[in-house]
C-alpha cells in the first residue's frame, strides 16, 4: 500500500498543489435516465466539501462513482493525482461511509474497524495499535467488544467512520452521514465531524440534502441539481451570491417574484424598483430576496425604507418573527425580523409598517 500509515501525515508540499479529487466530464446513465451529467470539479487536499442537493439529484451516484462502486459511462477520475477511472474500488484506497453504515453485523466494533487493516495483512500489533487510536478518536473506547446491534445510531455512525478511516484512505467519502439520525444527534455529530476533520486532515467529501449541515460544516459546497453541478463555492458565496435560480431557491428562504424590464436597467414591481444591469428591455426577470433582507420599520426611513405595508399575519419562529406583509396591488412580501425588534416595535397583525429591500438576486427567466 502506497498510502501513508496515518491519514494526518499529509505531505506539506502536497497541500494546495495536488488535487485530492479531480473529476472531469463524469456521466452516468441508468436505463435512459441521466443521473450524473458531464460533471467536473476539483477538491483540494485537506478540504471538507459538501455535495448538496435535493434527493434524486445524483449526488449519491456521484459519490459512489468516485469510490468506484458505480462505473461511469464517461469521464475521468483522478485521486491524489492518479488516474483511477478503471481501478477497482478495492484498490482505490478511499474511505466510504454508507448512509445506513453497512457495518458488518456479525463482527464486533473492534473487528469492524480492523477489517480493512486485516485485509491488508498488517501485523497484529500494528492493527491493535491503529484500532485503539481510532477508538479514541471516535470516542468509543470500551465498546470494542460490542456488536453493531448493541449500539445507538450515533455510535454506529462513528464506528462506520472509524472503519473507513482505519486504512488511512486518500479521501473520505460520506453518503448522507447524518441522514438516519435524530435531529439532536445530528447536531452533535456535525460538530464532531468538523473536529474529526480538523484533527485527521483527510480530504472529505460528504453528501447531504440538508443546507444547514452543508453551510455549517463544509469549507466548500457543491450544489447539485438534476445531475449537474449548479455552483461550486464557499458557504458564504453559495448563500450570498447564488449563481443560478436553483441555488437561490434551494439554499435559504426566499421571496420570489417574476417581472419585466420595462425601463432601462430597472425592474419595477409594485412600489419597488429593482436596479438590474445587462438585460434588454422587455426581458422577463426572476428576482429573489431573502426574508431577512427585508428591512421593516414602524416609521419610514428615507431614502430606502419607504414602502408602506400592512402586517397580515405574524408567525413566531423562535429567535425571529415572520411577517406576512401586504404592499397593495395584491402583492405580498415575507419578512423576518429578530424577535426582540418585533416585540419592541409592536409588529402585530393589522399594524402598518414601512419596508425596504436591502439585497436581492436577479436572473433572466430563460
Amino acid at each position, binding site marked *: 500500500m502506497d498510502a501513508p500509515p496515518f491519514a494526518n501525515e499529509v505531505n506539506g508540499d502536497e497541500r494546495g498543489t495536488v488535487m485530492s479529487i479531480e473529476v472531469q466530464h463524469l456521466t452516468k446513465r441508468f436505463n435512459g435516465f441521466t443521473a450524473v451529467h458531464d460533471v467536473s470539479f476539483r477538491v483540494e487536499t485537506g478540504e471538507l466539501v459538501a455535495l448538496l442537493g435535493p434527493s434524486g439529484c445524483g449526488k449519491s451516484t456521484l459519490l459512489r462513482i468516485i*469510490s*468506484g*462502486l458505480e462505473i461511469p459511462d464517461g469521464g475521468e477520475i483522478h485521486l491524489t493525482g492518479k488516474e483511477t477511472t478503471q481501478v*477497482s*474500488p*478495492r*484498490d*482505490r*484506497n*478511499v*474511505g*466510504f461511509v*454508507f448512509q*445506513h453504515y*453497512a*457495518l*458488518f*453485523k*456479525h463482527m464486533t466494533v473492534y473487528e469492524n474497524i480492523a*477489517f*480493512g487493516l486485516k*485485509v*491488508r495483512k498488517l501485523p497484529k500489533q500494528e492493527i491493535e495499535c491503529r484500532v485503539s487510536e481510532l477508538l479514541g478518536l471516535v*470516542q*468509543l*473506547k*470500551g*465498546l470494542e467488544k*460490542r*456488536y*453493531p*446491534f*448493541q*449500539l*445507538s*445510531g*450515533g*455510535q454506529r455512525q462513528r464506528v462506520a467512520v472509524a*472503519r*473507513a478511516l*482505519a*486504512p488511512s484512505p486518500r479521501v473520505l467519502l460520506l453518503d448522507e452521514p447524518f441522514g*438516519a439520525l435524530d435531529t439532536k444527534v445530528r447536531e*452533535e*455529530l456535525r*460538530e*464532531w465531524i468538523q*473536529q474529526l476533520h480538523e484533527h485527521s486532515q483527510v480530504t472529505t467529501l460528504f453528501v447531504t440534502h440538508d443546507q444547514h449541515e452543508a453551510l455549517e460544516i463544509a469549507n466548500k459546497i457543491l450544489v447539485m441539481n438534476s445531475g449537474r453541478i449548479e455552483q461550486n463555492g464557499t458557504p458564504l458565496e453559495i448563500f450570498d451570491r447564488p449563481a443560478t435560480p436553483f441555488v437561490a431557491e434551494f439554499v435559504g428562504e426566499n421571496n420570489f417574484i417574476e417581472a419585466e424590464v420595462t425601463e432601462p436597467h430597472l425592474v419595477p414591481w409594485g412600489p419597488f424598483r429593482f436596479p438590474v444591469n445587462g438585460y434588454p428591455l422587455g426581458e422577463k426577470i426572476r428576482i429573489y430576496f431573502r426574508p431577512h433582507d427585508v428591512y421593516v420599520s414602524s416609521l419610514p426611513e428615507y431614502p430606502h425604507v419607504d414602502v408602506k405595508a400592512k402586517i397580515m399575519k405574524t408567525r413566531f419562529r423562535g429567535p425571529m418573527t415572520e411577517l406576512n406583509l401586504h404592499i397593495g396591488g395584491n402583492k405580498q412580501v415575507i419578512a423576518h425580523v429578530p424577535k426582540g425588534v418585533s416585540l419592541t416595535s409592536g409588529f402585530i397583525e393589522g399594524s402598518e409598517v414601512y419596508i425596504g429591500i436591502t439585497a436581492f438576486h436577479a436572473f433572466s427567466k430563460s
Partner: protein
Amino acid sequence: MHARNSHHLSEPFAVRRIIIGATLIFVGIFLVAPLLLVFTKAFENGLAAFFAAISEPDALAAIRLTLLAAAIAVPFNVVFGLVASWLIAKFDFPGKSILTTLIDLPFTVSPVVSGMIFVLLFGLQGWVGEWLDEHGMKIVFAIPGIILTTMFVTFPFVARELIPIMQTQGTEEEQAALVLGAGGWKTFFRVTLPNIKWGLIFGIILCNARAMGEFGAVSVVSGHIRGLTNTIPLHVEILYNEYHMNAAFAVASLLTFLALATLIVKKVVEWKLKEKLIASSSSWTPLPLPTKLTEMNEEPL
C-alpha cells in the same frame, strides 16, 4: 406482537374454541396420528426386533447407498446453491427470471417424471444409453442413476433458501468490504457467508432430508435390485409389500427420526433468523449490558 388480545377485536369465545378445536383435530388426525403409528409399529415387537430389522444385510446395504447418494448430491447442490444465490441476489442480468424459474423446476415436476427423464436420457432406447452400453457403463438401474436423480430432485433446496436471504441483505456490506480493500473470496467468506450461515444450514438440512427420503424418482431409476440399488425408502417399500410390517416400520422410523430432526433444526433456524432480524433492525434496543460507558460516550467531544 401480532397476537393482540384486545377483546373487541377477536371472535366470541365459543367461535375461538371451535376454530382451535378444528385445528387440533385436523392436525391430530393428519400429523400426530401418523407419527405415533410409525413408532408404535416400529417398536411393537420389542427393541430386539427393531434392531434386527435395521441391521439385516439388505437394510444395511440400503442405508449405505442412501448415505452415499446424499454424500454426493448434497455437497454438489450446496456449492451450486451458494454460487447461484450469489449470482441471482447480487447481480442484475437479462434472463434472470428465466434462470430462477429453471432452478425451481425440479420442485414442480412430479417425482415420477424426474426419474423418467433419466431413464429416457440414459436408458437403452436412447443413443446415449446405447453408447454407454457399448462401453460397458450402466447409469440407470444402477448407482450413478440414483445419485443423478437425487441431485436433480434436491437441486433447488439450498439456492431457494439462500436467494431471498441474500436479497434482503442487499449488497451494502459487500460494497463496504470491497471499498476497504477486500477481494472477492475474502468478501464472500468473511462477510457474506457469516450473514447467511443459518439459512445455509437450513438449506443443507432440507436438501439432505429430501436426498435421503426421495422415493418416486429413485424408484423409477433404481430397478429395485436388492442389496444393490435399494435406498432406505425403497427398502421400506419392499418390506411392506412382502408383509414384513414391523420391519418396514422399523426402517421407516429411521427416516421419521430424520424428518423430526429436520423440523427441529428448521424451528431453531427460524428463531435465529428472527433474532437476527430484530437485532439488525435500526432502532436501538437497550440491552442488559454495562451502559455507563455508553452514556459517557454519547457526549460529543
